[in-house]
């Protein structure tokens, strides 16, 4: 059984936590979560908490850089970096 990709886990988590009315597959890796999918500052914090729970990592205050949260691809790179 193949392991689920980080991107796929992220998309599922985003749709579930933000109660989005789309399927996880519809989120495109490179499209802006903020401009295209309507993620705002409050839902961004929900995503930060979601990432911590889903991947067992801690998002430090110093990690709060909008470029890391802009797209699923950027989030995936961030998660991989944090997971070492």
């Amino acid at each position, binding site marked *: 059984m193949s392991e689920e990709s980080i991107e796929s886990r992220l998309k599922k988590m985003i749709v*579930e*936590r933000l*109660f989005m009315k789309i399927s996880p597959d519809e989120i495109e890796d490179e499209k802006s979560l*903020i401009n295209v999918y309507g993620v*705002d*500052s*409050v839902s*961004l*914090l*929900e995503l*930060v908490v979601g990432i911590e729970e889903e991947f067992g990592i801690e998002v430090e*205050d*110093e990690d*709060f*850089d*909008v*470029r890391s*949260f802009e797209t699923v691809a950027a989030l995936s790179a961030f998660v991989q970096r944090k997971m070492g």
Partner: protein
Amino acid sequence: MSTEQQFFIDDTGPALCATLYFPDGDVSGAILFCNPMFEELKASTRLMVEAARAFCAAGFAVLRFDYRGCGDSEGEFADMSVGDWLDDIGRALRFLNNHCPTADSPVILGVRLGGTLALQALRGNEEVRRVVLWEPVPDCRSYIGQELRKKLTKEMMTFGSNRATRDSLLAELAAGGNVDLDGYCLSARLYSDLCNLDSAGMAGDGREVLLLNVSHQTSVSRSYVKYRDRLEESSFSSTVDAVRLQPFWNLVGYVDGQPLIDRTREWLATAVES
């Protein structure tokens, strides 16, 4: 026809803005709402109004009020302490009892930090035997930490990255300074008061509690399982359920809170029947 009256409770302290929902016909009970704090109050107001109307239609007299320094009540938020707000809950309860003398013992319904305050307000109050908690704050220190994180997230959205860190903001509070949370001034005193709530005991004394965990999940989170244990250790008789609903206290947009209202009404009806 039920009525809604807005007025000020100005008995023994700063005037508290309040709304009383009074049912048509027999009053089957009375409910006092304890609001959340900071931005969560603004985001929760509409759902609380809808809940108050729904409970009123089910025969309950309902009182909603603003703590001093909040909403339309007298006072400055920056000057307030937890003790002030516990006093306000007591005043609102007395008001409700005076205006609904035929009702059974009143129920307190606390939302978020309002739930945490409600549990403290039970000390020395034998009248209240039932409490409803909507996503209460189990750990005030962590709660403030999350509020500070919200601040950082907003800075990140505005400036690209945050300008402070939680550590620097906490250091500011520890030095006796204030921190701005979306326009609400969190004073060093209030921060200290809130942190002290974490170690304050709770006086369950056999009271019944309905705790509703509101989230994207359909099962109760680990933190609320632990919280239930704390409630049981403090002699509360608790019912803990998960309600799958958006975190309405965090959202600017409308959230249909019907599942939360329905579950609460169901529990209230069972309690009235027994």
